[in-house]
């Protein structure tokens, strides 16, 4: 009756799943227990009597193959579905059909199920296409599995631990001998040794390091690429050969069009250096077989071989510094305005190179001296030439008296210095100047002490001034800031090389005796100091004591010009090789900064009187304008910023700009050129 039972209820799935469990658990079931089950369950046995008995056997144990063959011979396939339209479910060993269990209609099975009290134990085994009835034990196992416990009730997962080995009160040591005496006596030799070590440590003969040095491992990684490792770098060892470039698309026999160089590009390769030229020029071929042999192949592999084993490789340290960060932080030029930038006015009229210029202290007039034998005065505002003195010789230097009520011009000729009345200023000044520039007794001007006078003061009739006749060629002249004293430099004058003159007394003296060949001499702008530049040094003298205070080492080959900062503590020196040195007298006797700016001789360096500017003029036809802030704080170094290169003069006989001077009150620069033009650069 069990085989008739078939139920296709909704709870089938659950039951099926539980039957799977049963199957799975059946493997685990101990054979002994299976007997037990069989024995205990009468229901099952009763069913076994009937046709399903052999199936039950299969269910119970796998080992009982010999008893009954399983009904299923086709394997684990969805039997119900696939054999839906067949009447059999496979074939047995003899080739006969294994017929399906007869199907019951739902009503019949329901009625049967309602009648049968064991119906709830029956499930349908799809695998074998039969109905089976579960035993009570199996139900129990299923229930235990569902509730998450061990399937068999007899298994106790928490058994008490049984200590199999006894160890208490079982004392039988290996040797029962008493402890030897030596175990209790400290070793004399060890004690001596320790004492010795202690003594040595205390004496410092042995150094005890706290850190325990780890033993160096004597193993190394065989397969890692250790070219970059610290070890390899430390020994400067192995440097792998550079890898050859792998072929890319351009080496293809028919590369894409963008790889093919155009005719212009190929032509441009011809202009390149041999090294820079690309080694391989991509070309297109119609097919692979028309690609010719690579003609440079052998040579290239030979080169590579040579490169690999002959070329010495060294590891070069590349310094990874941004070049921008190395530049000193300079303020922007815009913030340093005003400074001269553009030439707006030209003063034309000289017939030869303009050697020297000088601006009158009020800033209204400009004086210039030229090789054409004239000295001129110009009106700065309009560029008009107001006055011309025919001095007849090359005017080497010209200098306005810095005192505003003494409009006197000093002009240096070959051996003479002319003191000229410029004719500026009102009537009172003019009458005073006439008196000042008048020498009553021509003979009485000889200095009494010296047998051979260095200077003779003579009245100059033609130009209504004073002519100071020097015994040797005069190179430069400079006024004292008060306008009474001035100095002239006679380079070949030996002990009388530097002369000091007093205008009001018409008197000259030579206070500085032992000197080299002086180049130029200037007064300190406010103190009683005096600067003499020889070819390589600048000497600083104290005028009141007539003694040397400082000697500045310029390090240049030949000084051409010096200028003192209006503050008096900084000097710039221009040299004939185009170098300019900035000295800070407080700081050192060596240059604070050396600027190599010009390619030819520097002819003149000059400071601005009020603006923080200085400039240099050179024979390379340029004038440079610099900004220079001098701080009153002694700890702060002067700030020097190059601002502008002023061009415009044309070279003449290898000479360029011969002189440059700042306007005393405006940020304007005058430059005198060998092309006989004076230019005014304005801001």
């Amino acid at each position, binding site marked *: 009756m069990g085989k008739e039972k078939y139920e296709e209820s909704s709870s089938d799935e659950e039951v099926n799943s539980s039957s799977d469990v049963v199957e799975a658990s059946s493997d685990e079931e101990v054979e002994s227990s299976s007997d037990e089950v069989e024995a205990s369950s009468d229901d099952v046995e009763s069913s076994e009597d009937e046709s399903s008995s052999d199936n039950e056997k299969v269910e119970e144990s796998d080992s009982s193959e010999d008893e009954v063959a399983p009904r299923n011979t086709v394997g684990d396939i969805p039997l119900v579905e696939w054999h839906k339209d067949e009447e059999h479910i496979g074939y047995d060993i003899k080739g006969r059909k294994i017929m399906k269990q007869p199907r019951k209609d739902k009503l019949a099975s329901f009625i049967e199920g309602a009648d049968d009290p064991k119906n709830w134990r029956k499930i349908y085994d799809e695998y074998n296409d039969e109905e089976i009835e579960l035993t009570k034990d199996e139900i129990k196992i299923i229930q235990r599995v569902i509730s998450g416990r061990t399937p068999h009730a007899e298994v106790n997962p928490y058994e008490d631990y049984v200590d199999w080995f006894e160890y208490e009160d079982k004392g039988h040591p290996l040797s029962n001998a008493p402890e030897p005496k030596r175990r209790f006596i400290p070793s004399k030799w060890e004690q001596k040794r320790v004492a010795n070590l202690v003594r040595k440590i205390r004496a410092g003969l042995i150094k005890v390091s706290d850190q325990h040095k780890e033993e160096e491992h004597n193993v190394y990684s065989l397969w890692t690429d250790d070219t970059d490792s610290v070890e390899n770098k430390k020994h400067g060892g192995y440097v792998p050969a550079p890898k050859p470039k792998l072929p890319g698309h351009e080496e293809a026999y028919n590369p894409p069009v963008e790889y093919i160089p155009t005719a212009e590009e190929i032509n441009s390769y011809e202009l390149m250096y041999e090294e820079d030229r690309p080694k391989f020029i991509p070309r297109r071929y119609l097919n692979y077989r028309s690609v010719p042999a690579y003609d440079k192949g052998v040579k290239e592999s030979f080169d590579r071989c040579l490169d690999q084993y002959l070329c010495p490789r060294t590891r070069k340290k590349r310094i990874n510094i941004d070049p921008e960060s190395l530049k000193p932080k300079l303020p922007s030029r815009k913030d340093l*305005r*005003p400074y001269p930038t*553009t030439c*707006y*006015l030209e003063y034309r009229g000289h017939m030869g190179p303009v050697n020297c210029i000088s601006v009158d202290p*009020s*800033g*209204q007039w400009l004086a210039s001296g030229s090789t054409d034998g004239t000295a001129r005065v110009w009106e700065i*505002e*309009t*560029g*008009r030439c107001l006055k011309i003195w025919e001095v007849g010789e090359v005017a080497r230097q010209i200098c306005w008296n810095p005192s505003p009520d003494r409009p006197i011009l000093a002009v240096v000729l070959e051996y003479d210095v002319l003191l000229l009345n410029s004719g500026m200023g*009102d*009537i009172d000044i003019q009458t005073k100047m006439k008196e000042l520039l008048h020498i009553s007794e021509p003979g009485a001007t000889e200095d009494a002490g010296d047998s051979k006078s260095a200077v003779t003061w003579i009245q100059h009739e033609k130009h209504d001034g004073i002519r100071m006749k020097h015994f040797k060629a005069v190179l430069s002249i400079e006024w004292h800031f008060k306008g009474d004293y001035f100095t002239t430099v006679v380079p070949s004058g030996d002990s009388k090389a530097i002369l000091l003159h007093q205008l009001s007394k018409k008197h000259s003296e030579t206070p500085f005796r032992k000197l080299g060949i002086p180049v130029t001499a200037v007064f300190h702008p406010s103190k009683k100091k005096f600067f003499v530049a020889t070819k390589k040094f600048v000497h600083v003298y104290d005028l009141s004591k007539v003694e040397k205070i400082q000697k500045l080492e310029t390090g240049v080959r030949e000084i051409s010009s010096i200028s003192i900062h209006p503050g008096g503590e900084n000097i710039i020196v221009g040299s004939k090789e185009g170098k300019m040195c900035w000295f800070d007298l407080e700081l050192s006797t060596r240059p604070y900064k050396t600027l190599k700016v010009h390619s030819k001789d520097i002819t003149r360096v000059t400071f601005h009187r009020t603006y923080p500017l200085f400039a240099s003029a050179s024979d390379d036809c340029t004038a440079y304008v610099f900004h220079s802030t001098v701080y009153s704080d002694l700890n702060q170094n002067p700030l020097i910023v190059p601002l502008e290169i002023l061009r415009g003069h044309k070279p003449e006989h290898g000479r360029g700009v011969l002189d440059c001077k700042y306007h005393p*009150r*405006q940020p*304007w620069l005058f430059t005198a050129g060998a092309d006989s033009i004076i230019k005014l650069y*304005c*801001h």
Partner: protein
Amino acid sequence: MEPNGSGSDASRQVQARFVTRLPPPLRVPPASMAVPSHLTRFGLSDIVNLLLKNSDPDHENQPFDFLIDGELVRMQLDEFLIAKGISAEKVLELEYVKAVAPRKQEDPRPHDDWVSAVDGSNSSFILTGCYDTFVRIWKSGDVSECTHVLEGHTGAITSAKFIDIRGVENEQNFHLVTGSKDRLLRLWKCDAAKRRGDPIRVGAYKILAGHTSSVQSVSVNPSREMICSGSWDCSIKLWDVKESEEDGDGTTISLKKRKVNSKTKESVDARLEGAATSTLVGHTQCVSVATWPDPDVLYSASWDHSVRQWDVPSGKETWTMVCGKALNCLDIGGEGSALVAAGGSDPVLRIWDPRKPGSLAPIFQYSSHSSWISACKWHPRSWFHLLSASYDGKVMLWDLRTAWPLAVMESHQDKVLCADWWKDDSVVSGGADSKLCITSGIEIQ
């Protein structure tokens, strides 16, 4: 926009209406019309002339200038609209005015030396100062005719001004003042009566001494009774000329007598010398210009980079503006006679508005010159027009309504040192080429 102007730039059109403030014969019908947008002012001018010819066959073609929203059109119409952000969809209102351009270049009046001062405030005479220390008066007319030569200065003339215009209008007497680099100002009077032959030589009737350095500029106050002068000695001096006029009436020193005086300068007759009534001190460098546009207000510009406004009765500074450049010229004019135009040691002509509070930035900057600006003058009547002269040899006419010069006059071969308006429609300028150039025919409404 016309629908037929499909795409191509040349055929794009703008609806425009021409309006004007010119008198009726020059008015066109106010109807709006489509004009090609690529036209410049010349094309627009042709259109207006065509329209005028339609209504009046006798009309003679003349150039016009066009204003859109108070700004002169100086490029193609469409570019202008884009630059100014004006919609091309609306009907444009194009105001046209007569184009301001010099039409006639008169013969230059030759001088013996650089012409450094010129005054054109008199309609029939021009006053020029020259580096040869002489001041000349030129009569207007086609023939260059120098009527008077004023002798006496010992240095280059820097400035020369007519004091009393009324007198001259009646052709009675000239009353003049001149400043020179010889540190003196001289007052002159001469008869304007016509005379044939050689120019009359005149001497000064009064010498104003006081400056210790070159006098750079002289200016007369509106009441014609006071003058002010700026000098290289950093001061501005005010002089009373009303008194001296009475003093010197009819006692014009003969040339001979004056020469005697100049030889013995110490004993100059006290009657001849005038002293300053007051001195304005404040500038730290050469006062290059001082002008006196208002009875109480005086303006000065200096090489110390500042423009200062002075209150004359108190002698105090009321406004200072630092511009960063040494200034050579200054003029007050324009809107409400309040704008300050100044130029100096750079090629930029700047215009400030002192009424604007808080800001000292120039409201206009014109930088077409290539060298220092030596002179700038507002047109005596127009609010918009001014001229500037520069060391690059050019005199330029400016209109405040455009950034480009209206006209560039290149009549000089060398630096232009001075320039002025004359008779409202001419520009007189003197320069380092020793010529006084007169450019006339500049019509300004």
